[in-house]
């Protein structure tokens, strides 16, 4: 039995490479993130999604699992993003009274914000020498992931990269968004949610939902309206910026 230990290690590693193992790594990474978040006294830089992405990303690198295999193994987790997005109507329903007197500011701000996100991303990237394909891929990053993928595809950008940009800016927003809004002196909770949802979509909303229902509700609404605004504006703006 000289190979006993090696054999056992090999069996454990092979089991981790199965869909069940990869799902387990993802859930354990998420729980570790939640534990660290509590231990750090809810420090904004400790977002469970970030911890879990680092854990799962290192795991698939070490286990030599291709990302596509990981993605299909964890479809069970990703699936719930759809019903959870639908559920964003719930905090908004509870906060519906706060929509009064805010509808016009909300719509104007979201449309201006969507245009700003698209145009500034394209021009900043161009200014620093990025090619047109990369500019197109960056132009959709403020939209929620499925919208970013679909629009980037229609523009001729790189859809998987657009998904990564969207998720990265989402996590960044969850970490730094509320603090930046204090610096910008945006104090109205409705406006704070609206602003973060417009630039960091659902991931930004996920942090706000845990801290303040008004902010979370308006971030969720903003995510939806921004997806709509970017879908409508991008084909028009593309004629002008590209």
């Amino acid at each position, binding site marked *: 039995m000289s190979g006993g230990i090696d054999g056992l290690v090999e069996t454990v590693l092979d089991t981790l490479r199965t869909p069940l193992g990869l799902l387990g790594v993802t859930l354990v990474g998420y729980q570790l993130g939640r534990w660290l978040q509590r231990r750090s006294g809810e420090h904004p830089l400790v977002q469970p999604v970030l911890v879990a992405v680092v854990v799962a990303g290192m795991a698939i690198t070490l286990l030599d699992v291709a990302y596509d295999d990981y993605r299909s193994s964890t479809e069970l*987790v990703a699936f719930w993003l759809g*019903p*959870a997005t639908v559920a964003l*109507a719930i905090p908004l329903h509870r906060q519906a009274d706060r929509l009064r007197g*805010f509808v016009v500011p909300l719509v104007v701000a979201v449309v*201006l914000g969507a245009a700003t996100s698209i145009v500034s991303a394209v021009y900043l*990237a161009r200014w*620093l020498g990025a090619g047109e394909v990369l500019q197109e891929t960056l132009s959709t990053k403020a939209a929620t992931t499925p919208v970013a993928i679909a629009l980037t595809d229609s523009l001729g950008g790189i859809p998987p990269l657009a998904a990564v940009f969207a998720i990265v800016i989402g996590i960044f927003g969850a970490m730094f968004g509320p603090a930046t809004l204090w610096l910008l002196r945006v104090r109205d909770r409705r406006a704070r949610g609206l602003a973060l949802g417009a630039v*960091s979509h659902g991931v930004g909303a996920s942090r706000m939902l845990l801290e303040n229902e008004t902010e979370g509700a308006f971030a969720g609404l903003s995510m939806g309206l921004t997806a709509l605004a970017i879908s409508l504006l991008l084909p028009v703006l593309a004629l002008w910026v590209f």
Partner: protein
Amino acid sequence: MIVGLTWLIAFQLLGEVTVQVLDLTVPGPVVGMLYLFVFLRLRQPAADAPVLRAGTGLLRHLQLFFIPAGVGIVASFGVIGADWLPILVAMLGSWFLGLAVVGWTSTGLERLLGQPRDDQPRTPRAAR
């Protein structure tokens, strides 16, 4: 739980069908969210209704559902390569500008239209 999840999936399906029929680029769940909102406003279900319990439960773990997409970063390191600087600046710059435009436009218009501003804690600490 299952009753509530069935409701959420039914609204998502309704959204998906709408998107397909009208050929929209907006995702089905976003349209489903609008339908659920209208439904909740019209029906005003009790606070412990299954759809509200299931939805609130899912939203508490919203970050979990983004992890599979987030791990895609690992696969994109190679593509980013030499273009890291324009990507970094465009991402952060555009994020900041978008945040400021939405935050300032909405609060500015509120004031302009004479609507009283909502709850406004003065400092991050008071907000807790």
